[in-house]
């Protein structure tokens, strides 16, 4: 079994530079959720110079729209959503200090270029394993855009959140390299 790297938030530039595509990680600390509509609003806020829902510097955004929490639960199932839909809206956030993203599926060349330029990393979590992933989420609280329902921005406190470094800050991308290995 390969070893697992433990990541403590905040995710600094130095920590990002120590991660390589293919590394298995467990993330602990505070991360934020955001998907389609929240991205649109965050980028609009940036353009207008309005306040952001959270401090982007050295943060991680998790692309997720969780299911409602059952009574007594912190959150419902909460696996990643497909990342390419956020591609165009991601670049301004990376330029403002966003250090990591968690989602599923590969990213555009433009996003990868921006990750390399600014030092950011992209993690893949297992799509469709929302019940399992929810176990690593210890606190969840809506901090912005509550009207968006499942798409609102949430502050999550996670412990040992499981993910793989899919694209690193050097442009290494296991979506490309691994697929090539198993092609016949």
């Amino acid at each position, binding site marked *: 079994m390969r070893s697992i790297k433990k990541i403590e938030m905040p995710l600094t530039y130095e920590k990002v530079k120590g991660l390589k595509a293919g590394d298995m990680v467990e993330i602990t600390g505070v991360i934020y959720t955001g998907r389609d509509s929240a991205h649109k609003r965050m980028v609009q806020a940036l353009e207008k110079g309005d306040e952001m829902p959270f401090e982007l510097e050295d943060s991680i955004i998790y692309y997720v729209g969780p299911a409602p929490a059952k009574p007594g639960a912190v959150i419902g199932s909460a696996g990643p959503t497909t990342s390419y839909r956020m591609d165009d809206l991601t670049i301004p956030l990376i330029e403002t200090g966003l250090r990591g993203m968690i989602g599923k*599926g590969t990213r555009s060349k433009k996003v990868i270029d921006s990750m390399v330029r600014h030092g950011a990393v992209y993690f893949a979590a297992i799509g469709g394993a929302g019940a399992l992933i929810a176990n690593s989420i210890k606190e969840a609280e809506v901090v912005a855009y509550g009207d968006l329902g499942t798409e609102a921005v949430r502050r999550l406190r996670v412990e040992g959140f499981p993910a793989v470094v899919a694209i690193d800050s050097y442009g290494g991308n296991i979506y490309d390299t691994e697929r090539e290995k198993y092609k016949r």
Partner: protein
Amino acid sequence: MRELHVKEIENAVREMCISSNYNLPEDVYKKLSESKNTEESEIGRDILENIIKNADLAKENRVPICQDTGMATLFIELGQEVFLTGGDFEDAVNEGVRKGYEEGYLRKSIVRDPLLRDNTGDNTPAVIHLKIVPGDRVKIVVAPKGFGSENMSRIKMLKPSDGMKGVEDFVIQAVSEAGPNPCPPIFVGVGIGGTFEKVAETAKRALLRNVDDCNPDPSLAEMEKRLLLKINDLGIGPQGLGGRTTAIAVKVETYPTHIAGLPAAVAINCHATRHEERIL
């Protein structure tokens, strides 16, 4: 003539929305478990193991397998000797969806206006495919489908001369381009023939078949096998992170078509292929 109160339809829909989202069909579960033993990639095996763990957990704790509890898609066969009483049929189906998604703590993912994008708040309306059939029974299939995979489905109006090879190339291209996005291992439904709208529905219906069955037509059964091999040779693997398990099944369904056309559709479903059936 048999009378059936629409409340019974509502109740069945409500219960199936919940249970189909909590319980992976057994055939799918079994196939995914088996593929763990044949997967060559270490990351791939690890992912498959977690997918199975996740399904176990969802069943045990009665929570959705995936947070994307989908747009409720229903295939209903209404016996022509059934006389529905007590209200509007479609309202009853939607009421079942509304209650199921609320009571089951399922995600509300539907926006009223596709351009303005305001959430309806109750996951309605459902998409209903209705067929009138002989008899006095009502068969209801609830198939919630997430959009990670729905977004990767494709349709193409091929030329008759493109033939079987043209269809196969199109399927492989669609799956290859989809890559990691539809949460592989995927379940692939292929529709061939009909019209523009019919072929999409045909492909969708193919997703309801059992993982292990094959088309009764030998040449289509061969096509299913061939496509499965070709897809798994793409190397996409579990979650697109490389491996030999890209698809667990390919199902092909056909419908007569026009002399000038060869419509083809690829409906892609994720490993969380969910559907449940009940006969009233």
